[in-house]
């Protein structure tokens, strides 16, 4: 199975990268650009074949390593 994990900053947490990207886009002449936020996407190939088990595993991985839950949220998608 394949798991796709999205890790994004919690709302209210400063995102210097997003801010700089938004600024650069305006400088390049793209108008109408509002807030920009940057996050991570992590794709993991798993041997596990049971989707529910895979999800539980990946959740544990997020809590322990992939996301910094002090400042980040995560979401998980499992594909067959």
């Amino acid at each position: 199975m394949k798991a796709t994990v999205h890790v994004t900053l919690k709302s209210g947490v400063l995102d210097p990268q997003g801010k700089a990207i938004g600024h650069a886009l305006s400088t390049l002449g793209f108008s109408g650009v509002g807030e920009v936020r940057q996050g991570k996407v992590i794709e993991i190939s798993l041997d596990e074949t049971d989707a529910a088990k895979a999800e539980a595993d990946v959740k544990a991985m997020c809590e322990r390593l992939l996301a910094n839950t002090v400042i980040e949220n995560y979401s998980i998608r499992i594909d067959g």
Partner: protein
Amino acid sequence: MTLPNAAITDEVVAEHGLTQDEYQVVLRILGREPNLTELGIFSVMWSEHCSYKSSKRWLKTLPTDGPNVIQGPGENAGVIDIGEGLAAVFKIESHNHPSFIEPYQGAATGVGGILRDVFTMGARPIANLNALRFGDPDHPKTRHLISGVVGGIGGYGNCVGVPTVAGEVNFHPAYNGNILVNAMTVGLAQADRIFYSAAAGPGNSVVYVGAKTGRDGIHGATMASKEFDEDSEEKRPTVQVGDPFTEKLLLEACLELMERDCIVAIQDMGAAGLTSSSVEMADKGGLGIELDLDRVPVREEGMTAYEIMLSESQERMLMIIRPESADEARAVFEKWDLDFAVIGSVTETGHIVLKKDGVVQCDIPVEPLVGEAPEYDRPHTPTAPQPMIAAADVAAPKASLGEVLALLMSCPDMASRRWIWEQYDHLVMGDTMIRPGADSGVVRIRDTDRGLAVTVDCTPRYCLADPKTGGAQAVVETWRNITATGATPLAATNNLNFGNPEKPVIMGQIVGCVTGMGDACRALDYPIVSGNVSLYNETEGTAILPTPVIGGVGVIENVNKLATPALKAAGETLVVLGQ
């Protein structure tokens, strides 16, 4: 005046860290009940962090003056004369608790804060140092904490472009639940171009520059602030994220503006944000300040006066400028893509007055807000003297001397720190003359032959065994480390890291260490010109080891005469000096 309609119950007062006695003083000063914003401001100003209420009495005993001292404690950083019309500006600061919660960002913003303290005074930062304490290397959290902290210190300092040239790292189980991250910055300024924080000139503009204000790290009453935060679906993190890029822009913009004649006073927004910066500037100038909070650049919608005043957003500064300089100053900050907003003015009222939505939200007389801050002479029990250990009682090592040497060199407190300082850019600026790995780091002063030798030291187990001797030893060790490069030690800064001062034993450690430090500094003509205090470093009732970190600065007139530890050739004579 209309007040935000939050009842100030005993519980709200307690959540703001004020005792009932302290709250009675608030009532007396105001002659009425405070509103929540005002309570928040008292709470910040009277916190241990801002008021030094437990340590002030003892800090006053330290020698802070001397022929080289241009500015002792009390400003953003200390300033000393280093010859040729130049000054060194330096300070050390802790970011212990945030670094335990989120090691990377906690350490990074610690570096950011101390850099701002130094460039606020008109100095270009030229060296960073860090003193770190972690728990047992085998503790499950230690690895994560150390890699985050080292990453954060490097991530911030490397990006801003200030070399990290020295530091120290210790491990002890007493720090398992309470690591210490102390960061020091040394900057260089023209001795006659130092910038101070006292507001002056009623009618002058109060200007906000730097990054926007968000809801970062707003402490205080979780319950009380909940009222302002109903729609937030998640608990707001109390950790700030650092933006070293914005800091670098702020640094360059401030230094550029300082070359012109615009700035009357300047103060960085440190841990206590807009509150402490505006109150301190007003207090030092014996004046009032009126702010229109609607003009504060904000990052989030619907921020209240309480949130704006207590936000700990990073990379911000407050300045007083003459109104006619505003356009010139604005142009500099806009060149660097930074926010610049005139948010208020200096007044003769002696009050800090805050308006929002056209309504007065706070009106506090500044003099008692600062002058009547609590100050305690807390009970202290001296640490009992430890019995001397007779050499004969210590078993001789069974291993060979070679094995003992290998054992010593591989123990965590002695092992090489190369893997740490290789993650720090210790060469940027091109003036690093002695890199990490020696007794002190040395940076040359550009366009002169002079160099500054810098070091941080403390041996906490000595301080635990005998606080007074331990405090003195930390001072003396920095003095030796500076001397060993050929430089002359001039002055020091200190970071007092201790447990809960309400416990007489801990207070005894504080008193002992400070007394020892003072004695050693007096004996060496080595004044303390700045410092920081971090108390309540305890987890589940267990305190850290007493850790009064000393940062020392010395000058060498000719860097070509530096001494380094490297052996230069075979056949040279080794000499042992001292006892």
